[in-house]
């Protein structure tokens, strides 16, 4: 199977950055169709730069990015790339344009020239996936943060992308809103079979991912399943990232000579071992 996202020896330098200061430094990543990949890193690690590069908002200084085989440097393919790769950003308020939920969701596909009745079908389906059908006639600005973000995601889904890239989609949400979005991401990936690339600094959002890539200074510092990555408690702490409390406790007990399996993620797994 060919990767749907292929990043090869990618460098990115911001204009005016000090000589040799790369935001991304010789980064190579492949993401395969249907994968749920999480990119974790603290602010300034290069993760948002990566998001902008992936749909051609900015172009690589060196190296290549191909989305479903299309190079982001190929200007003629830019619209196809953006249709393949939908983006969800941090602030839902900046992503909503219409005054009625269903009109907002229809905006994208309408601009793609999707005719009726398919347009309506797409809107209905997108609303169903994010579980917001009953709000279709509501005004977006009266919804909660989590609901608004789900509308933003539905707007992307209505364009039927193969890949959904999310750049810190929960950073501005309260705990309930975050849980809603984590649930939506799981549906997108497992039920809808979308490839998901989730960029975040919240560790609790990535425990369901197939693969976690930890970025530090534009390079891959750690990579593996969530279990593999989080069990490296010391390295994660050094990188300024959190690990689940259950993992930290198991690691600390193992360090103190208690015989237990240290690569656990959840409260249930921890309790089972104590």
């Amino acid at each position: 199977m060919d990767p749907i996202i292929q990043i090869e020896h990618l460098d990115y330098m911001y204009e005016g950055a000090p000589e040799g200061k790369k935001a991304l430094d010789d980064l190579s990543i492949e993401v395969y169709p249907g994968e749920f990949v999480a990119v974790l890193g603290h602010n300034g690690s290069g993760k948002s730069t990566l998001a902008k590069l992936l749909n051609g908002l900015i172009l690589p200084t060196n190296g290549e990015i191909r989305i479903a085989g299309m190079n982001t440097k190929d200007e003629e393919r830019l619209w196809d790339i953006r249709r393949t790769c939908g983006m969800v950003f941090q602030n839902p308020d900046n992503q909503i344009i219409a005054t009625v939920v269903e009109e907002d969701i229809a905006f994208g596909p309408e601009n793609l020239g999707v005719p009726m009745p398919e347009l309506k079908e797409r809107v209905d389906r997108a609303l169903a996936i994010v579980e917001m059908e009953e709000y279709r006639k509501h005004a977006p600005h009266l919804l909660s943060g989590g609901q608004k973000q789900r509308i933003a995601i539905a707007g992307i889904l209505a364009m039927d992308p193969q890949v959904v890239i999310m750049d810190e989609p929960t950073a501005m949400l309260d705990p309930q809103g975050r849980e809603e979005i984590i649930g939506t991401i799981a549906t997108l990936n497992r039920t809808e079979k979308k490839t998901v690339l989730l960029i975040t600094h919240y560790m609790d959002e990535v425990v369901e991912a197939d693969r976690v890539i930890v970025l530090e200074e534009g390079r891959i510092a750690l990579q593996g399943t969530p279990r593999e990555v989080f069990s490296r408690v010391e390295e994660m702490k050094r990188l300024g990232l959190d690990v689940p409390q259950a993992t930290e406790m198991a690691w600390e007990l193992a360090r103190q000579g208690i015989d237990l399996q240290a690569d656990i993620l959840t409260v249930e797994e921890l309790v089972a071992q104590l």
Partner: protein
Amino acid sequence: MIEIKNLNYIYHPGSPYEKYALRDINLQIRKGEFIGLIGHTGSGKSTFVQHLNGLMKPTLGTVNVSGISTTDADAAKRGLRQKVGLVFQYPEHQLFEETVAKDIAFGPQNLGLSEEETEVRVREAMDMVGLSFEKLHDRSPFELSGGQKRRVAIAGVLAMKPEVLILDEPTAGLDPRGRDEILDEISALYESQGITIILVSHSMEDIARLATRILVLDKGQVVMDGDAREIYREEEALNAIGLDIPDITKAMKQVAEKTGWDIPPNVLTVQEAVDVYLRERKNHA
């Protein structure tokens, strides 16, 4: 230092749309307390804190800060806003000056302080939030990182030398490192300045770490008031209003049920959990 009596705030009172945002709140906040204020979105947290510096006025009841009632006509003149510093959510959105120093100096200048005194205040405030005056005072605040911008905004409030500092979700949107740095600074500020702090947060972990007293708001009412150990043993009651106890607290409660060991129902940190577990394990070896 703050006395709240029968505080009610009602939207559209007397109309069919009447809605209580705050209902029958009675409490006192003493000098030197570190209050953690938690509650679901819409529980009234922001409305509540805006009553403490007079930005909002009670529909019924009174709020008294060091003898000044927030409804007094001359409350502002008597320095209410200066006594109670309020750092809003995403305070960096309110930065506006050309340089960091000018932005922080805005408040003290409005108090009518001399240029020298203002600069002393700016230096002190930057120091308190871990920003280097030498390196940053001349920079545009808009060139700084997110965490630095937020510190500049907090310094702007600190430069007013408030007796009470209210922070509404000061770590929202920050990464774990940025969050820990800000919380450490708030904690240091509390230890060194003897300032009264009210921290509004969604994070049970952060509140458990810092607060000496926790207020839980639900539907505009204070439904719990106590220290972390008292509050976090009420798992069911917290769940019922959409809040959750820290994972480690939850895990240790389950271990207690499973083993029958003497584990308190309100373990707050991973370190404490490790210590309790090792102790009990030895006792039952």
